[in-house]
């Protein structure tokens, strides 16, 4: 836009009634003094009026809202009361986070439990192998000190209160 004593080229802020535009006041004061620019502005206003004329505008088809409403009902799920739906929908993200946290906790807890079981089984397996290698018989509950052979071979038998005077066969 040319300024000073020259005529402005762009009357946009005035045409758009854009009072917030910094050039608006400047343009208005120029227009108050300049007949030539007032005429020029009228030309631009006529142009805008041509484009705003009714003939170039469409009316909204009356069936449009019906179609939109039907599609909205489809996407939102028919049968769910809107009040309930509105209570659930904004909280969906929070529910998802809570559910995710619960699943994660279950996986961690389950994993820990599983690894504890594996460790126990490995210990038991090692004890069994050792017992087999040493020829120690293990009682049904897996305690090598309950079996007679184990008691006989066990250096702590006396100390643990087992009667060594009886034959091992009687004690079984």
């Amino acid at each position, binding site marked *: 836009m040319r300024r000073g004593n020259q005529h402005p080229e762009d009357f946009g802020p005035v*045409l758009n009634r854009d009072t917030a535009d910094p050039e608006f006041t400047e343009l208005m004061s120029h227009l108050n003094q300049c007949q030539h620019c007032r005429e020029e502005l009228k030309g*631009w206003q006529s142009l805008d009026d041509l*484009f705003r004329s009714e*003939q170039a505008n*469409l009316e909204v*088809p009356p069936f449009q809202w019906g179609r*939109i409403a039907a*599609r909205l*009902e489809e996407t939102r799920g028919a049968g769910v009361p*809107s009040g309930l739906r509105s209570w659930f929908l904004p909280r969906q993200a929070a529910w998802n986070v809570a559910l995710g946290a619960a699943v994660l906790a279950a996986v961690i807890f389950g994993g820990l439990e599983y690894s504890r079981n594996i460790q126990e089984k490995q210990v038991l397996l090692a004890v069994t192998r050792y017992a087999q290698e040493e020829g120690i018989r293990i009682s049904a509950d897996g305690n090598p000190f309950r079996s007679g052979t184990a008691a006989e071979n066990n250096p702590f038998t006396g100390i643990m209160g087992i009667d060594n005077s009886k034959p091992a066969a009687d004690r079984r």
Partner: protein
Amino acid sequence: MKSEQAEIILRARSGDLDACRQIHEDYARRILNFIYKMVDSREDAEDLTQNVFLRSFQELRNLHDPERFEPWLFRIARNEVYQAFRKKRGEPQKSEAAGPGRQSELQEPESPDFRQTPQDRMLSDELGATIRTVLRSLPPKLREVFVLAVIHEKSYAEISEIVGRSLLSVKTDIFRARGYARKELSQYLEVQKR
């Protein structure tokens, strides 16, 4: 925007279908005509307008400030238009396809204005077609800001928010588009003066 309008938007956000209908009633005509001026096809404009409202109602939860609903809605409309342009990329441009058949398709089936003489009507039909031709011949970047400024009377700041471009770029493009349109429609402007 009045706070009453913001209240309707909040109601629509919580799933109130009546509020959605009210919003459609208030904005559909503006959105339809913005899209129509951009795509120059009544059918496409109606379909796209429907999509705009569906999308806006589904995404209302993402609108943080209900007072900024209108620019937000225009932004969705603009995105729909550009998506349609991308889909149609490769197809011949409508401006190239314009011909007598095309012209007749563009005639709006509106009731005739009985105050007009046949000569007036002919001039008015011709003017309508010329206006559409002028809009069609503007590149979309210029067309969108021109339509928003001239037909929808939006401020530069609002247009800048809708199209996501700087204020200066918006101002320059509106000025360029206005200059082009005035040149193309000069004969009609002369007739109006008389």
